[in-house]
C-alpha cells in the first residue's frame, strides 16, 4: 500500500509537466520543433544511448527493455537546461521539465506491461521586436511578440515477452497528442491604446507503432527497436487557419553494451529517424533531412559511497538534427560530452541517477550556434 501510494504520487508529480515539454533550444522555432530524447539520466550519463544496456530497465525506446523486471516499477526523470545563444538575435535561457515518466509491471513469468509518457517535439519559443507606427501623424511605439507554446508528446503502451532464454521482444502502440498554441501580441507602450492579442491553437494527433528486441549474452548485449507509421495531424481550432498533416518518421535504434572488465561496461547506440519523409511538407520552412545520432559511454561500477555502489559514467554524443535553421543555411548538428553517477537505496528498491552534459548545437554555416549545460535526475522506484 505504501509503495502504491508513493508510485501514485510520483506519477502525479511527473505527469504535471511530462506532456508539455518545455523549450530546450531555439531550434524549437524551426520545422516541427526540436525532437526530444525520451531517455533517463543513466542513459544520458552514457552519452544519451537509447538502448542496449544489459539489465532490465524501463524504456520508451525499446518495448522489450523492461522484460526481466521482477516487480512493478516507476521511473521519473527531471531535466534542466541552461542554454547560451551565440547570436545577437537570441537571449540566454534556462528550462526545467519532466521529459519522461514510465512504469512497468510484470505479468507472470514472461510478460511485462509498460506505460510511458514522454515529450517528442518541443515547440516552445518566442520572438519579439520593437518598432514604431505612424498613427494620427505621430510615431507610436509598438512591441510585437510571437509566442509558440506546446509540443507533441507520446503515450506509449506496450508489452514485452521473454521469448527465449537470451532473447526478449516487445511491441508498443504510440498515441501522439499535444497542443501548439500560437499567441501574437502587439502592445503600444505609453499610448493608451489597447493591446491586440491573437491566439491560434492546433491540436496534434497521431498514431504510431513500435517494436523492439534485446539479446542478452554473457559478456555483451544487443538491442534494436523500430517505431513509426501513420501521420501527425495538426487540427486547428481556429477556422481561419488550415489543418496540416505530416508524415511520421520511421525511427530505428540499435545499440549494444559489453562488459570490458568485471566492473566496467561500455555501451553504444545509434539512431536513424527518417524525417526526410516530411521534407516536402516542410519545404516552405527549409525542409527536413533524416536525423541520426551516435552515442556511447562507459560505466564504472567499482566505486562505493557509504557502503553503497556508486556507478560513474562518461559518454559522448553526435547527432544530426532534422530541421534547418535558415532556408539557405546548413542543417544543424549537436555534440555533447556527458558524465553521470547513480545511487541505489533500499536494497535496490530505489535508484537515483544524475547526469550532466555539456554540448553545442549549430555553427556559423547553420546560422545559429548555442551551447548548453544539461542536468538530468532520474528516480526509479520498484514496488518491492
Amino acid at each position, binding site marked *: 500500500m505504501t509503495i502504491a501510494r508513493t508510485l501514485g504520487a510520483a506519477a502525479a508529480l511527473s505527469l504535471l509537466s511530462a506532456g508539455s515539454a518545455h523549450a530546450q533550444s531555439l531550434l524549437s522555432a524551426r520545422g516541427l520543433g526540436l525532437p526530444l530524447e525520451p531517455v533517463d539520466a543513466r542513459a544520458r550519463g552514457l552519452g544519451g544511448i537509447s538502448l542496449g544496456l544489459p539489465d532490465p530497465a524501463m524504456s520508451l525506446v525499446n518495448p522489450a527493455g523492461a522484460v526481466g523486471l521482477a516487480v512493478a516499477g516507476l521511473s521519473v526523470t527531471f531535466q*534542466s537546461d541552461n542554454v547560451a545563444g551565440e547570436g545577437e538575435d537570441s537571449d540566454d535561457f534556462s528550462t526545467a521539465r519532466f521529459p519522461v515518466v514510465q512504469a512497468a509491471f510484470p505479468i507472470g513469468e514472461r510478460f511485462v506491461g509498460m506505460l510511458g509518457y514522454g515529450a517528442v517535439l518541443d515547440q516552445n519559443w518566442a520572438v519579439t521586436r520593437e518598432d514604431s507606427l505612424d498613427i494620427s501623424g505621430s510615431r507610436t511605439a509598438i512591441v510585437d511578440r510571437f509566442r509558440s507554446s506546446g509540443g507533441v508528446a507520446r503515450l506509449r503502451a506496450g508489452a514485452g515477452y521473454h521469448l527465449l532464454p537470451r532473447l526478449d521482444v516487445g511491441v508498443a502502440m504510440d498515441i501522439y497528442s499535444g497542443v501548439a498554441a500560437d499567441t501574437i501580441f502587439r502592445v503600444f507602450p505609453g499610448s493608451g491604446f489597447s493591446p491586440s492579442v491573437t491566439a491560434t491553437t492546433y491540436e496534434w494527433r497521431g498514431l504510431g507503432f513500435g517494436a523492439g528486441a534485446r539479446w542478452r549474452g554473457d559478456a555483451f548485449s544487443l538491442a534494436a527497436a523500430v517505431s513509426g507509421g501513420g501521420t501527425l495531424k495538426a487540427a486547428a481550432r481556429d477556422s481561419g487557419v488550415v489543418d496540416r498533416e505530416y508524415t511520421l518518421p520511421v525511427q530505428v535504434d540499435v545499440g549494444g553494451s559489453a562488459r570490458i572488465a568485471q566492473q566496467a561496461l561500455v555501451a553504444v547506440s545509434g539512431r536513424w529517424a527518417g524525417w526526410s519523409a516530411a521534407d516536402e511538407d516542410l519545404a516552405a520552412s527549409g525542409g527536413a533531412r533524416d536525423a541520426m545520432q551516435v552515442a556511447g559511454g562507459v560505466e564504472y561500477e567499482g566505486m562505493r559511497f557509504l557502503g553503497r555502489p556508486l556507478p560513474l559514467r562518461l559518454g559522448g554524443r553526435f547527432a544530426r538534427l532534422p530541421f534547418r535553421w535558415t532556408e539557405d543555411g546548413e542543417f544543424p548538428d549537436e555534440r555533447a560530452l556527458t558524465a553521470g553517477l547513480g545511487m541505489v537505496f533500499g536494497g535496490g528498491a530505489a535508484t537515483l541517477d544524475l547526469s550532466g552534459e555539456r554540448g553545442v548545437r549549430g555553427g556559423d554555416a547553420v546560422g545559429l550556434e548555442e551551447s548548453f549545460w544539461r542536468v538530468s535526475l532520474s528516480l526509479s522506484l520498484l514496488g518491492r
Partner: protein
Amino acid sequence: MQRRFLFSGLLAALALAAGACADETPTLSGEDQFPPGSIPITREVIIPASEFIRSLGSFSGYTSAVDAPYVVLANQYEGALSAHALARFTGFPINVSYVRNGATRQDSFFTYVDSRLVLGVDSAAVAGVPLTVQVWEAVQRWDAFSATWTMAVDTAGDRTPWTEPGGTRGALIAQQTLTDADADSLVITIPGAAVERLADSTSNGIVLTIAETGKRIDVADVLLRAAIRPDSASPDTTIIVTVRTGPFRTTVYTPEQPDAPMGTFAVGGIRSARTLLELDLEQTVPGCAEGETCGEVPLSEVQLNQVAILLRPTTVPSGFGALNSVPIALRLVEEPELGRVAPLGQTSLDRDITFAPGDTVVVLPVTSLTATLAANDSIPRTFALVSELPQIDAPPTFGAAFFDPAPRLRIIYTLRARRPLP
C-alpha cells in the same frame, strides 16, 4: 516505514529540484525571426460624422448656481458676463472659551475685532490679474436657492426683485487685489464693526464683486475667520473662530448660460448642458494592409486598439467658456424618447476624460463600448455627452464647452495575425 520515508524523501527532492529551476521561453529578437504572417498589421481609419453620429439636441438647466461648490465673480468678462457672489455666514458663537492663568473661562460678552475673509481661489480659473475683489454689505433679503441676477427671491409664494440687479449692495466693507494668478487664496481684512453686523441674525450677508471690467475668477470656498476679544479677558486675548456660509451662498450672473447653436454639442457649465447623441459604431474597416486592395470587414473581426470620437472645441459665447478643465462623460440613455428628462445610464468611456482650455481636440475613447455594441444588438445606441464628476451631482465647472457639430470617429485596429503551420 523506513522505505516509505526514503521514497517520500526522494520524491520531495525531485519536486524541489524541479521547483528550484527556472523555466524560460527561448526568445529571439528581430523582425526577420518572425514566422511568415505573424507580424500584426495595425491601421487607422477616420470616419466622418455623417456615418456614425447624429445629434438629437442639446439641453440644459439641470443644475443651478446654488448646486455648485464654488462661486464666481465676473465683471463684463469678454464684454458680457457679470457674476456676483452672495454669502451669508452662519454659526457665529454665542459665547467663547479661553484659558486664563491655566483655567478655562467662558464669556458671552465679547467684541469682534478686525477679522479675515478668506477666499479659496481656483488658480486654474482666474482670468486676468490683477483684479480687485470687493466685499459689500448685502442690504436686501435674498434666497440662496432661487436668487438670480434680477430676483432676490423667486419662489412660488414670493417673487421679490433686487432693488439693484446682481444683489442690492450697501456699504463697501473691504476690498483686496489679487496680483498672483497662481495664488490659492485671497485674504481680505474685514473691520470688526462689519463682522459685528454680519453676525447679527438679521444680516443679509455680503455681496462679492470684481472692481475691474473684463475679469473673472472662480472662488472655491468662502469663510470668515472672525477675531473675537472676550470682555473678561485681558486686552491682548484674541480668539479666532471660523465661520462658514453653509448652504447660504450662491452666484447670480447675467446673461444666462448660452444655448448651443443648432447641431453644436454643448456640455457642462453651471446649468449642466448635455447633448443627446445617436451613435452608430458598427462600422466596417478595410481587412488588409494599407495600399492593398480588399473588402471591408466588421469590427468584430479585428482587434480594436482604440475607437475614439474626436471632438473639436468651438468658442462658447458670453464669457461662458470654461477657465479650468471640464470633465466629460458619455452616459447611456435608455429612453431617448423622453428627451431632456431622459434618465442617464452607465458611463461608456474607457476612462475619465477632461477638456482643458487650449485643447484643440478632445479624444473620447469608446473602445469597450464599440466592442460591446458590436457583440450585442439589444443595447441602446443613444448616449448623453455630459460634464460630471463621479458620484457628485454638482456642476463641475461654471464654464461650458461647445464642440463642433462634425466630430470624427477614429478607429485604430489590428488585423488578426496567424502563422500558417510550417
